[in-house]
């Protein structure tokens, strides 16, 4: 039995997971329209490589990764691209972003798929394959997986497969582990190969016994040396840093990455899509999504990326008093700006909300510094101080109090007796600090450019002056060398000078002669 560690704080919100685990994962039927955003991952937006009117096949590349941290985007089914324009997407800003609209032809016709044996390829080749197959972290942050595999010379001791799924309501990873454990285990083995990790651990919260059993069965069947660890159910036990702490006892230092302490962490659903990408040549085109909350039939669906969320919600039969939708869990999810936005790679759960299920938050009261948030904080921070600095916009101090180690899990807001929306303050402060750092960079750039311009003017002035001086000197020399006849006045002057020189010579001569004469007289006198 592995000795488990604990992280500080954490909370126990009602899990509400059983509603959506009663029936198996269903395939969502093909919708009549798909909206595929080009920016579904962390990092740079993918560049469109198709045009309006193009007929595309299922799995065809439509967005080329652009930049180091970027990922490919593919057509989720065969059909015609009818528009490439700005559309509303699931983003807390409620602002639109570039999307391709695809009208399916209903044939679901694949492009040529090329399965590879991962053992025949080098690590950079496999990384490139994952990048071009659009594999990103499916836990929620959608960070490109190939970037997480570029570890350089660092030695990875432990590869962690994150199946904790600690947020209430969400069960997509649970159902995936129950039904498709084999492919998860194979994917984990591929990731282990790419990282050259010593051990593979699956962290699964102990409220998912079926998933744990399924994984263990799959590992036994494939005769691999992986280890499934049941971890206590505490929110946010599924956050990477906290999970690493529980499983290995190691703490990721502030401002460092897990790879710096020899650990790397992937979601189980990511491992599944790695397996699909390499062993089947299938890019990431669909994912499992939990439809739950205020619905008649809470269930997990495998839906194509780009499926409008209202289509999925209709499958789950949202109740009539539904007043909104959350993408993600109730703790960290974002309210959707519209129910017509499409499913993206990060969409793990859609919760229909109602006044009964999620009553309006109570009005906020002033902070009484009770420090209940400190007790709950899994990152060992001082949330009440961070709140104080964020609300008074003292960003420097907030940074000194390790604002950027906050994982925005919402445990502090959950326990706050004054009902202060603490995480909103931290998000505000973080994005404000990032914006300022960006402005500072731009200002520094402008300073450099301005200084260079001044320097260039200075240099040009100097060059001009040098040129002028050189020209003058050349003119002088030319003047001297010229053989122009002299004027009578100059001739007279020259003659005068010559006469004077002659006179001086004569005087000098005579004085020498005189002294010589005197010398002789003196000698004879002696």
């Amino acid at each position, binding site marked *: 039995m592995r000795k488990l560690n604990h992280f500080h704080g954490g909370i126990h919100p009602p899990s509400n997971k059983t509603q959506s685990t009663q029936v198996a994962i269903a395939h969502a039927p093909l919708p009549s329209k798909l909206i595929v955003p080009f920016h579904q991952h962390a990092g740079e937006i993918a560049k469109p490589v198709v045009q309006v009117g193009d007929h595309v096949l299922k799995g065809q590349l439509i967005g080329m990764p652009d930049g180091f941290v970027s990922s490919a985007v593919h057509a989720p089914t065969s059909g015609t691209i009818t528009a490439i324009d700005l559309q509303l997407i699931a983003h*807390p800003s409620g*602002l639109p972003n570039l999307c391709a609209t695809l009208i399916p032809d209903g044939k679901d016709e694949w492009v040529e798929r090329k399965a590879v044996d991962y053992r025949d390829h080098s690590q950079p080749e496999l990384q490139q394959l994952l990048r071009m197959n659009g594999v990103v972290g499916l836990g929620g942050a959608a960070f490109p997986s190939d970037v997480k595999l570029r570890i350089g010379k660092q030695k990875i001791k432990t590869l962690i497969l994150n199946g904790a799924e600690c947020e209430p309501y969400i069960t997509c990873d649970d159902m995936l582990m129950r039904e498709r454990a084999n492919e998860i285990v194979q994917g984990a083995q591929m990731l282990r190969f790419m990282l050259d990790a010593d051990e593979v651990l699956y962290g699964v919260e102990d409220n998912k016994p079926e998933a744990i059993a399924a994984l263990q069965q799959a590992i036994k069947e494939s005769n691999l040396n992986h280890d499934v660890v049941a971890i206590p159910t505490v929110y946010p036990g599924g956050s990477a840093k906290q999970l690493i702490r529980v499983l290995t006892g190691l703490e990721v230092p502030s401002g460092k990455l897990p790879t710096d302490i020899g650990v790397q962490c992937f979601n189980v659903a990511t491992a599944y899509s790695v397996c699909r990408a390499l062993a089947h040549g299938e890019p990431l085109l669909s994912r499992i999504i939990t439809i739950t909350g205020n619905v008649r039939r809470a269930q997990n669906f495998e839906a194509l990326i780009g499926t409008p969320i209202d289509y999925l919600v209709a499958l789950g039969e949202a109740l009539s008093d539904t007043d909104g939708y959350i993408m993600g869990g109730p703790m960290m999810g974002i309210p959707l700006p519209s129910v017509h936005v499409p499913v993206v790679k990060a969409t793990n759960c859609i919760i229909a909300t109602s006044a009964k299920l999620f009553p309006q938050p109570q009005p*906020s009261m002033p902070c009484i510094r009770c420090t209940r948030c400190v007790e709950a904080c899994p990152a060992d921070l001082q949330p009440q101080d961070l709140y104080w600095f964020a609300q008074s916009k003292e960003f420097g101090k907030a940074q000194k109090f390790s604002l950027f180690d906050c994982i925005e899990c919402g445990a502090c807001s959950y326990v706050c007796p004054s009902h202060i929306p603490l995480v909103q303050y931290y*998000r*505000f402060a973080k994005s404000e600090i990032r914006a300022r750092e960006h402005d500072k960079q731009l200002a520094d750039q*402008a*300073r450099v450019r301005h*200084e260079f311009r001044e320097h260039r003017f200075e240099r040009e002035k100097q060059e001009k002056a040098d040129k002028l001086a050189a020209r003058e000197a050349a003119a002088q020399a030319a003047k001297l060398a010229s053989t122009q006849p002299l004027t009578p006045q100059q001739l007279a002057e020259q003659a005068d000078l010559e006469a004077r020189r002659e006179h001086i010579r004569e005087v000098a001569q005579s004085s020498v002669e005189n002294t010589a004469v005197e010398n002789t007289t003196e000698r004879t006198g002696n």
Partner: protein
Amino acid sequence: MLSALLVMAGIAIALGAVLGYAAIKFRVEGNPLVDKIDAILPQTQCGQCGFPGCKPYATAIAAGEADINKCPPGGEEGIHKLAELLGMEFKPLGGNAVPKPKSVAFIDEATCIGCTLCIQACPVDAIAGAAKQMHTIIAAECTGCELCVAPCPVDCISMKVIEEKITNWKWKYPVYALNTVETTNVAGAALQKTNGRAPG
């Protein structure tokens, strides 16, 4: 008596040598205060302060020749930072200058006659073009100083406010409605008014 004098003189010479060496070795290039002030200024190089750039303004502030409230692009926040750095009182923005939203210049390329006047005016070389060739703004380098607008003989340059896009979007300061209070008198109304803002 003499030995004491010699000892003291010896110490004085030795320490003097150390100080002299340190003065050469650790010599600070330029005025560090000017650099600190310059770091706070927004580097738009717009000249709205009356100086030909941010550095000359910083130099003037350091020398005590200019007020700290002459930089509209820096806004009130910049003045606060300068006041804090220099241990001065905050002053509201001087003159009738008002901070404008951050914008970039835009050249209507169909109207541009390629006179290069804007290129000469741009303090950060953010305009590309040549004589009798169309010019264009390198938006990523433009500081929004507006110095190119006036010299243009055909008025083809306009300032475009940078719109909020998904790439530059920021989380907003949390503002939420509090419980509305039944008001029956003026004091109650005033109370409700103060309740309308975020706490803290």
